[in-house]
């Protein structure tokens, strides 16, 4: 067994407005000289530390936990799960 850090990023699905991200883009970033930026989305990240046999198992287990406990609401959110060595 090894220890892994698993990052769960929860963000709104495409098409669902993200007023905080839009404000950061329009009223902060684009008011500077950063015209190359076209989109900013806010998200919530949960960092899990987990003991598992390998990275794939760590990712599968954390996804199961997120689904079972409704860590995200599937009506509005999508999750991205990234695994790193501890």
């Amino acid at each position: 067994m090894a220890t892994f850090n698993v990052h769960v990023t929860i963000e709104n699905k495409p098409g669902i407005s993200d007023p905080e991200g839009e404000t950061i883009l329009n009223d902060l970033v684009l008011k500077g000289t950063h015209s190359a930026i076209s989109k900013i989305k806010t998200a919530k990240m949960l960092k899990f530390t987990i003991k598992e046999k390998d990275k794939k198992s760590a990712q599968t287990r954390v996804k199961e936990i997120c689904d079972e406990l409704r860590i995200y609401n599937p009506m509005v959110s999508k999750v991205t799960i990234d695994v790193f060595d501890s």
Partner: protein
Amino acid sequence: MKIGVIVFPGSNCDRDMYHVLTDVFKLDAEYFWHEKGLPKNIDAVILPGGFSYGDRLRSGAIAAHSPIIKDVKKMAEKGIPILGVCNGFQILVEAGLLPGALLKNTSLNFMCKWTSLIVENNTTPFTNKLKLHQKIPIPIANGEGRYYVDDETLKKLKKKNQIVFRYSEVVNGSSDRIAGVCNEDGNVVGMMPHPERAAESAINPIDNKPSSLIFESLLNTIGVKN
């Protein structure tokens, strides 16, 4: 005849709800701590407003896993009237008893103000004394009150008459101005505004009658006259 008012860590409208049920409408009500079960002789269940678990993770997301929710689900299946107000609505949604999601208001502000509702379904246990399209002056107090459903679910809600209340104007960016919904059977109702803060003339500067009809509907349903 007894109404259960469920108390979670962080509930803060439980006393207002209990007061309205007992002092104003002379009903027998009892608080139930979320870690306990509900007795079988309960005739209706109310999940009051507040900030259960400090809105950690997402409003209602943690309370939705409280032990008492298992009993609430069983009672929902039996057809017992269940009302969630504000955070109670968020908990019912997160528990999967009602469809949709409640997002941060478009303004990103906590909104605490008077608004008005339009009755869209007057067949539920909490709206059967109201007239269809009746207007209800009522306060809202929430930060995550923007009701969202995808287009497919919205069509289903319309088809099955599950939209119970709409705001009379655009308030917080909710899908189709929805302020309250019910389950397919109609016995589980959730609403963001606070009827318990509007059912008495002493605290309602506009008209307390429409909100009091929400409680009178419940009386009508469970067979007790006021």
